[in-house]
C-alpha cells in the first residue's frame, strides 16, 4: 500500500460517465483538473474518479486530511438539487443509491469507521440526478451544476470555503 503524504486533500468523483447523470462526479473532477492548471491553490489537491467500490474508496482516502466526494444520487427533492453533507450526515446505510454492488456510500463510511479508515474530514457534494440510463449526456439541470460544484469542491480542498458544517 502506498504511503500517503500528510495533509492530503482529495476530490473523488463517483460514477460512470456512460450512465447519464451518474457521470456527474467524473465530470466535476474533469472540470477541476482543468481549473487546476490556472489555479495554483488547487495544485496540491488530488483528483480521482471512482466507481464507488468500497474497498478501493477505503484505500484511496485512508489517512487523508480532507476528502470531498462528488456523486449523483437517485431521488431527492428535485433533479438538480445540490446537497452538501458532512460525514456524520452520511453515516447511515441507505438503500436505493446508485452505488456499487449494494454497498452504499453510507455503508462504506460506516465500514471505514469500523476499520478506523475514515479521513479526518469527509464532505459529500451530492446532486440529485434524473436520468441514469445509458448515454453520455447529463440532464440539463444536472449539467448546469458541474461548474458550480467544481468551484465549491475547489474551495473546500483549497481551504477557502470555510467550515463545511457551516455551509
Amino acid at each position, binding site marked *: *500500500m502506498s504511503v500517503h503524504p500528510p495533509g492530503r486533500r482529495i476530490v473523488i468523483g463517483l460514477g*460512470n460517465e*456512460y*450512465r447519464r447523470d*451518474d457521470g456527474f462526479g467524473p465530470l466535476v473532477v474533469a472540470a477541476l483538473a482543468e481549473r487546476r492548471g490556472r489555479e495554483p491553490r488547487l495544485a496540491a489537491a488530488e483528483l480521482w*474518479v*471512482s*466507481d*464507488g*467500490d*468500497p*474497498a*478501493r474508496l*477505503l*484505500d484511496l482516502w485512508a489517512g487523508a486530511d480532507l476528502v470531498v466526494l462528488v456523486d449523483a444520487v*437517485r431521488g431527492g427533492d428535485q433533479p438538480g438539487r445540490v446537497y452538501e453533507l458532512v460525514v456524520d450526515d452520511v453515516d447511515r*446505510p441507505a*438503500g*436505493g443509491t*446508485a*452505488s*456499487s*454492488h*449494494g*454497498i452504499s456510500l453510507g*455503508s462504506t463510511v*460506516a*465500514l471505514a469507521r*469500523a*476499520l478506523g479508515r475514515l479521513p479526518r474530514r469527509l464532505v459529500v457534494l451530492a446532486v440529485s440526478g434524473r436520468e*441514469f440510463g*445509458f448515454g453520455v449526456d447529463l440532464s440539463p439541470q444536472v449539467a448546469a451544476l458541474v461548474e458550480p460544484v467544481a468551484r465549491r469542491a475547489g474551495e473546500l480542498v483549497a481551504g477557502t470555503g470555510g467550515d463545511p458544517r457551516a455551509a
Partner: protein
Amino acid sequence: MTHRRDRTLEVRALARVEGEGAMHVRVRGGAVDDVRLEIYEPPRFFEAFLRGRRHTEPPDITARICGICPVAYQMSACAAIEDACGVPVDPAVAALRRLLYCGEWIESHTLHIYLLHAPDFLGYPSALHLAQDRRDLVERGLALKRAGNDVLELLGGRAIHPVNVRVGGFYRTPLPRELAPLRDTLRTALRLALDTVRWVAGFDFPEFHHDHEFLALSTPGRYAIESGSVVTTGGHGFSPRHFEEHVVEDQVPHSTALHARLAGRGSYLVGPAARYTLNRRWLSPLATQAATAAGLGPDCRNPYRSIVVRAVETVYAVEEALRIIDEYEPPARPYVDVPPRAGVGYGATEAPRGVLFHRYRLDPDGLITSARIVPPTSQNQAAIEQDLRRFVEARLDLDDEHLTHECEQAIRNYDPCISCATHFLDLTVDRA
C-alpha cells in the same frame, strides 16, 4: 413459522452495475407456483451502442459494462476483434493479459467472498456488521483485494476501467523492474488467499445439489482464464467461433435479459464451480492441495460451496500472477498493429463469474456493423431460477422474512452482480 398455503414474495431492486434484478416467488396451495429472477441486463443496450464504432473501440466501451470485471470485457473484446482481423498477439502480450486478468479475479473473488457472501454464512446482515465484530477478517479481505487492485493499477493504468488495454496489446508494457514490487505484495497475498480457503471451508453449507450441465473454457495445460475452447460436462466441445450454434438465447416475458440454453439440452451454469469441475486437473499443485483440504471433490455441485471455489481460484490467480511476473520478458513492441478488414470475430474469456462471449462483424473500414455480447449472468439465469424453486420448496415452513433471506443468500451463491441487486431490495410480502 408460517404454513400459509398461498403467499407471494416480491423482492424489487434498483442497481446500476452489471444487472438489475428482482425476485418474485409465488406459492399457491402449499406449492411453489412461480419463481422469477428478473434481470435487466445492460449489455443488450451496449450491443446497439457499439454499432458504427471503430474496431479499436470495444475494449474501452465494453469495459464500462461492469465496474467489477472490466478486464473481462476488454479481454473478450480484444480477442474477438483480433480474430476478425486475423491478427495474433505476441506471446509476451498474451502473458501480460493473463496477468491483468489474474488481478481482476483476485479483486472480484475477494470482494464477493468477504464483502458480499461470507456475512451470510456467519449470520451477519452485512460486511459492516462483520467488521464491527471481526475487524481482522475484513482487514484481511481488503488486503487481499488490494493485491489484485495493485496488479490492475500497474498494468491497466488505473484500478477501474483500465485505460492501458488496446486491440493488439497494450499502449505501454512494463519493464520487469516495474513488475518486481508486485512480487512482495503477491507473496503476502498468497498467504492471505490460503488463509481464506481454510476460513471459508469451515462454514456451514446447507445440503443442496444440482445436476445442471456446466460450461467453461478449457486450455489443456493450464487453468483457463483469458482463452480456451468451450467444453461442457455433457461432453460437448467447440470453439468460441461456434458458440452461437450451441448456445441459444430466448426472450422471456419477465426480463429484458435473455435466457440462454444449450441447444437441444436446456439450461446450464457457468462460473467458478463450472470452471473448477471442468478444469480441476489444471490447477496448480498448491491450489489443488488447498481445494482438497477444503473438502472439494472432483466436482462442485453444491452452489453454497462456490465461495470455497472462489477462494481456491484466488489462490491460483495469485500464484499464476507470481509465475507470470517471474517469467516475464517484455515484448518487442507493446502491441501489434491490427489493420481492419471485413469479417466476423469471436472471443470468449472467463470472467470471474463465468464465460463471457463477444462477437463483432466489421465492414472493410473496421466499422462495427453488429455486436453480440453474452454475459455470464444471463447464461446462468434459467438455472438459477430452477434452483431457487427447489430452494423455496424445501423451505416453505419458514416465515416470509427468513425465506426471503435464504433466497437472497441462494442467489448470492451464483453471481455477485445479482447479489448486488438483492442487497438493495425492499421486501414486499403480498399476502394472498
